[in-house]
Structure formats: structure tokens, C-alpha cells
């Protein structure tokens, strides 16, 4: 069965919200395992793991440093050097936060690595806010490799004209200017041309549109999305309600 992009987003988003609301270590670990499992089944694990590690490793190390070394509220001191005290409460708090954030990051990344970008763009490319949002998202995702490539070519061109980055702040600022100005200038210029072309094709028109690519959206998946959104809202309400009444 083909999964509608928004259904996938609803599954990932509601899982992330419910995990945050529950804030329980076993559930977080279960979600981590499930996200990795889904990613493995769909064959995206190889790309997912480096992307997730780039985000999660510094975050986890930072959490460990902040709460592991300094947790004034902790009472069970395991070790202490001067002002730094390692407490078991601090380590537990860091582990809990790290697992919760890993669960949320992995489940959202699992969606963004499995979703079909053309389908997502087709779903978003209606008129109004969604159309413009779809344009911005799709345009960014396609421009990113092209512009990164252009930045490399500009650097090579400047180097062939004798650009050598020497030590010292002023030299580096000058080198930055030599590379950034041509890049920004060409991008702003391109954008102007693109605006005229898009406008000629009715980008701002508010009339009805037809899509070249039709993404099937069965009634079952629409129902599932509604249920998931309600479940996420219920989980948030259930967490906030006792807090609101109990202080």
C-alpha cells in the first residue's frame, strides 16, 4: 500500500508529541527501536544513521556535560572535584532527556528519509499558503545541492585567480567577501529571473489549479490522520490537565 505523505507525517508527528507528553524512559526507548526498525525495513537506515548521529551525538554529550557534571538539585553524590559533582539524579535526568530527544529526532528523520519528495510537493502544491509553502520547501531541497556546487566552483575560480587564505582575521574576512559576494549576487539575480518566469505562469493567481501528479488519498488514511491528530491532542491535554488543576 502506498502511504500518503501527510499520513506519514501524521504518524511521525503524533508519535513525537505523545512520546514528549508521556516522558517515560521505556516508551522513549521503544520508539527509538521502532523508528530504527521502520527505517531498516524501508532500506533508509544507511542514510538515516549518519544524519541522526550528527544531530544526536553533540546533543547527548552536551546534556551529559551539563547535568552529569553540575546538578545542584542532586543529593546522591557519586564523585566530586571542586565545583563539579557527579550525581546519580543528574545522570538519570541526562539519560531520560537524551532518550526522549533521540526518540523524537529519529521518528521525524525516519519520516523525512522515507517520504517521496515529488509526492510531498504534489500534495503541497495547491494554491494559497500551502502552495507557497510547497514552493519554498521544494525549491530549497532542490537548490541546496546546486548552490553548494556553485559555491565550490566560485572558490575554485577565485583560487585560480590567486586567492590564498592566509592566517589572520582580516585575510579571512577578505577571502569570505571574495567568495560570498559573487555567490549572493548570482543568487539574487537568478531569483529575479525566476520571479518573472513564475509570475508569467500564474504563481500568484488565486484561481483553481490542476495537478500533473495525482497522489491517491484513500478514505482510510484520511480517517487514520484524524485519529492520530486527536490522539496527540488528547495526550497533550491529559498531561496538561493535572498540571493545571494540581498546581
Amino acid at each position, binding site marked *: 500500500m502506498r502511504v500518503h505523505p501527510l499520513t506519514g507525517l501524521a504518524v511521525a508527528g503524533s508519535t513525537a508529541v505523545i512520546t514528549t507528553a508521556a516522558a517515560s524512559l521505556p516508551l522513549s526507548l521503544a520508539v527509538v527501536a521502532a523508528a530504527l526498525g521502520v527505517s531498516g525495513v524501508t532500506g533508509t537506515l544507511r542514510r538515516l544513521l549518519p544524519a541522526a548521529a550528527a544531530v544526536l551525538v553533540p546533543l547527548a554529550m552536551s546534556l551529559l556535560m551539563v547535568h552529569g*557534571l553540575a546538578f545542584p538539585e542532586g543529593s546522591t553524590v557519586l564523585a566530586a572535584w571542586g565545583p563539579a559533582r557527579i550525581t546519580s539524579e543528574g545522570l538519570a535526568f541526562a539519560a531520560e532527556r537524551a532518550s526522549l530527544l533521540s526518540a523524537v529526532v529519529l521518528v521525524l528523520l525516519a519520516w523525512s528519509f522515507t517520504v517521496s519528495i515529488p509526492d510531498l510537493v504534489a500534495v503541497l502544491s495547491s494554491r494559497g499558503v500551502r502552495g*507557497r509553502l510547497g514552493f519554498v520547501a521544494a525549491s530549497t531541497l532542490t537548490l541546496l545541492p546546486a548552490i553548494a556546487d556553485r559555491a565550490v566552483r566560485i572558490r575554485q575560480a577565485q583560487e585560480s585567480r590567486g586567492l590564498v587564505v592566509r592566517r589572520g582575521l582580516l585575510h579571512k574576512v577578505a577571502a569570505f567577501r571574495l567568495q560570498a559576494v559573487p555567490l549572493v549576487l548570482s543568487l*539574487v539575480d537568478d531569483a529575479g529571473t525566476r520571479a518573472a518566469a513564475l509570475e508569467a505562469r500564474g504563481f500568484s493567481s488565486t484561481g483553481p489549479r490542476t495537478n500533473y501528479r495525482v497522489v491517491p488519498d484513500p478514505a482510510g488514511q484520511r480517517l487514520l490522520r484524524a485519529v492520530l491528530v486527536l490522539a496527540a491532542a488528547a495526550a497533550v491535554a491529559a498531561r496538561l490537565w493535572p498540571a493545571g488543576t494540581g498546581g
Partner: protein
Amino acid sequence: MSSSSLTLPSPAPAAARRRRLLEILGALAIAGTYVYLVLNQPADITGGPGSVPALIALSGFLLGAVLLIVAVLPTLPASTVVLIPVALVLNIVLGQFVGSTLVPFYLDAIGTVLIAVLAGPAAGAATGALSSIVWSFFNPTVLPFAAGAALIGCLAGLAARYGLFRRFYLAPVAGFVTGIIGGVVSAPVAAFVFGGTSGVATGAIVSAFRSMGDSLLAAITKQALISDPMDKAIVFTAVAVLVYALPRRTRLQFPFVRRHRVLAGRAAEPEASVQETAAPNAPQVP
């Protein structure tokens, strides 16, 4: 460049009022969430799982950012909308470049501030919020900072509107002040959603303040006040360098730059009239 349809009717005043209402609601959601989090300083942040303040911070700031996007995005002319993806990519590409060669700052707001200077506060705010949302496709941890990024775009646009980019030495000052405000507003997100910071170097600073007995929010706010103003001062200076290096023709194709005389130099009357004949209906970005 032509920016709006010449044949279709302009949006009704009712729609404009609804958008203004959405903008105000979005700003109120962000301000209200911040005030609630700071006044109530949820004590359970380090005592328990602390998911209540995380949920409040997430929902309030995200709701505000989404309302701002819904209010602003349809009103932007096409010439500004096509610049937003460019700004998003610049945030990433220049941020990486500077991060790897220049100084140990991340400078991931260059594109947002550039759009704000060229197209105004509304476009800057929308670009900041969208930047976080699209970037979260690869890195979901930036999503909660959407409101802070929108605020930085908006403040940069206001600085340009009131002429702080006309004098070169005022740009870093404006960036410094923007960094203070942005850092203070983003600190509750870092404290309540992440329980810390996302980098090891910033984590070390937070850890130092915590070991002196500060609360988590106080420690992260102090860390933000150390890093963010310097970071934004550099970003604003870099944008000023870029904007003044652009050719006059490119700079003056933006109605916001012409109308509020954002940049120093001769008054733009002759160019403005040439541009007006080229694009008779170019709407003015507020």
C-alpha cells in the same frame, strides 16, 4: 520585476484584516508563552520528567510561528517568495563555510537577515520561521527555535527600516541588540525542551554556571547572552558587507530598499522611477 497580477482584483480589506489579526495572534502566542515560562519558572524541570513546560514551550512557540507564516506568506510578492529558498540555502551553505574556516560561531542566520534588509520585517520573520521548519527536515531539533528565528528576522527588518544599515558602524550594534533579545527568547526553548544546549562548547558554559548553583533557565540564559549577541553582530556585519557589495541595480530592485532608503548613498529617485516604469504595480512591502 512584476510582482502582482494586473488583471485579478486585489485581496479584499476583510482578508487583510484577517491576516493582521493572525499576525497579532501569532505575536501574542510567542510573547504569552515566553512570559508564562519565565514567570512560572516551572520548578519540576529538574525534579521530574518535566514534560509540561516542554509541551507549553513547544506548542506556544510553534503555534505563533505557524500563525505568522500563514499571515505573512500569502501577502509577499513573488519576487520575495523566490528569495526565501535562496535565503534558506544561504543560511546553511554560508553557515557551514564560516563555521569551517573563519571563527567558532555558527552564523546560521545570514540568509534570514539578508532577506530582512532587502524585503522588510514581515519577509524577514517569515523567512526565519520557514528556515527552521524546512531545516527541521534534516535536523528536527531546530524546529522549536522557529519563533526565535522569526523574531531575529523581524528585528533585522526593523533595524533596516529605521536606517541602522545606512551607517556601517551601526549594523553590528543592531546585531548585538538583536542577539540579546533573540538569545533571551530562545533560552526557555533550550532549557525546557532540550534540558540543555545542542553544542558541546555551549554546554560547557552552561555547566559552569550550573555548578555555581544557577537554575537551568538562568544558566542557559546567561550562556545565550554570552554567545548570541556576538554571533548576531558578526552576522549583521557580514550582511552589511554583502549588501553594499551588490550592484546598485540589484539592490534597488527591492521596493523596501527604495522606499525606506535602507542603504546609504544618493537618494534613489532616478532609479526608483526607472523601476516603477518597468514594474508599474510592484506592491510596497511594509
